């Protein structure tokens, strides 16, 4: 459903925008999901907070800490999701231990029952993910694979061979976080991966504004994931209309690119 939906958009010529929302960082987080969808999101990445987010920068760490401090758990997030349905696919992002701890069969079932279409598990690389992928696939949950600027082409192809949903091109050799200037690696990876896959190719990590989003789609990507740039504004307490304006701007930049 994730892949199919994004492929349709892609074929229709629409650039894909996937904002990131940290589940539970604020009691009203589901409204934020609605807001980003209304503002032009094509899918939403929902983070389940983890105690040791070793691939996240300060903004997402902080959002996760707030959520954990509020008593958010993987189950509380999934039951909140279960009460709702959304007009776009939902992709859960978290670290592997939470699923491992639930047991992968149960984790996949719970995710599916909550209406989750795909997952991004940054610390579950190709080699370690076979069991998970098989279990997920068996229940129609798509596991997004990441490729990074330092992944060799040979390895890229191995990863692409198991990729589902979309390909997450890591735009920057860093943890999540905003960047004043787009990393050179962000456009380079788009150009590099593009010829090797027909899956939707999204670039994330370090995409902070419309110009940067436009630059990566011009380099060959189908769209972007925007995390820290949005979450920082949320943490700063920006109003819904300010947040909506920010998402819409990126939407517009993508549409014009």
């Amino acid at each position, binding site marked *: 459903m994730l892949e199919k939906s994004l492929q349709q958009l892609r074929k229709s010529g629409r650039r894909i925008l996937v904002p990131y929302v940290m589940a539970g960082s604020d009691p009203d987080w589901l409204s934020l999901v609605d807001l980003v969808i209304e503002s032009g999101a094509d899918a939403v990445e929902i983070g389940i907070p*983890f*105690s*040791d*987010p*070793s*691939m*996240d*920068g*300060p903004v997402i*760490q902080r959002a996760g*800490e707030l959520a*954990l401090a509020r008593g958010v*758990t*993987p*189950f509380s997030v999934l039951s909140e999701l279960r009460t709702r349905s959304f007009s776009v696919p939902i992709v859960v992002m978290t*670290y*592997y*231990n*939470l699923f*491992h*701890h*639930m047991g992968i069969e149960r984790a996949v079932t719970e995710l599916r029952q909550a209406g989750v279409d795909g997952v991004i598990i*940054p*610390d*579950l*690389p*190709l*080699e*370690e993910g076979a069991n998970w992928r098989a279990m997920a696939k068996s229940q129609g949950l798509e596991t997004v*694979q*990441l*490729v*990074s*600027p*330092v*992944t*060799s082409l040979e*390895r890229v192809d191995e*990863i692409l061979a198991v990729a589902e949903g979309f390909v997450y091109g*890591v735009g920057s*050799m*860093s*943890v999540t976080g905003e960047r004043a200037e787009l990393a050179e690696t962000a456009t380079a990876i788009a150009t590099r991966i593009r010829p090797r896959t027909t899956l939707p190719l999204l670039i994330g990590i370090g995409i902070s504004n419309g110009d940067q989003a436009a630059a990566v789609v011009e380099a060959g990507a189908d769209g972007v994931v925007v995390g820290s740039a949005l979450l920082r504004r949320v943490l700063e307490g920006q109003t819904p209309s300010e947040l909506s304006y920010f998402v819409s701007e990126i939407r517009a930049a993508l549409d014009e690119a």
Partner: protein
Amino acid sequence: MTSVMGNPDATGRFGEFGGRFVPESLMPAVIELDSAFREAWSDPLFRAEYTATLENYAGRPTRLYLAERLSEYLGAEIWLKREDLAHTGSHKINNVIGQALLARRMGKSRLIAETGAGQHGVATATAAALFGLEAKVYMGEVDVARQSLNVFRMRLLGAEVEAVTSGSRTLKDAVNEAMRSWVAALGDTHYCIGSVMGPHPYPWMVREFQRVIGDEARSQYEAATGSTPDWVVACVGGGSNAAGTFAGFVDTPARLVGVEPAGGAAVGHGIGGIVHGMQSFFLQDEFGQINEAASISAGLDYPGVGPEHAHLHAIGRARYDQVNDDQVLEAVQLLARTEGIVCALESAHAIAWLVEHKQELLSSSIVVTLSGRGDKDVETIAQRLGFLEGEEHA
């Protein structure tokens, strides 16, 4: 895996534990490290330089010392493997010399490291100075405060020390922060992990760089007694001194014992999990969030344990027990007063285990790894024991 404590397979598994759970951005780096280590470790020249540096610089072999008064007190024969006498004051130097040589061989000009007690940070700063590399050490803010002596030592050695303010602000957060910063600096930077933890090849590589403890102790014990000991005991934080020690004795009949702090017993109280790149045991809440460890010794305040220990536990080759802070404080004093050795709080866990299991150990022979000296802990100990009361303290 071919044999117990042999070389792991290409995926870095010890039974079901270990592996390489890192983000794709780090994957090429750990693969490169794996092959660089395999190649270096089978290169006699590399081994020779590693060994020579440990001997000429770090003071190896450290002594295996028959502690007569402690033996008498315990009614057993206690042999102490004196890592406290190694340069920088703990076994951490063994590993770091190995990794610094490897980093240099790989063309890296910079080391980063996490540290808890500060011993691994000091060792890293030391090796960096020795080989002319830059060093940056991540240390939880809580540990920066409780191990200030080591913070000063690192700075004096020219290393940058960054106080980590995320999460519980202790060792596990320092690991997270080091991994984060590594991603951004892979080109020139080697991440020098301080224990048998993290993604493959670290648990294996660090055990190999630490097996000098066990190999020396084995042959020293044999030279002294013509035999092998009944027991081999070491404290377990991440588990590097224990792994290095056990490696020397795993193919003997010796019973292997790892001693964890009651407040940070990943084997004793943890459950299976996957964090910091490895599958192992971790202290976790009911949802899989990692809990903080809490013991008197900063160097054992790690909620996980090296995957090979999880395996040795699973197959029953090693036993893992716990001791609490009070036992540890007693043990520090016991060793100080019977043998004139002020050991690290970490190492005192092994001594405390002997005291607790005195009956079981009667008349047996025991090799205990004394992983480090206690200078860094003296202030903590003094405060806990009330030595500071009413005294001037500069």
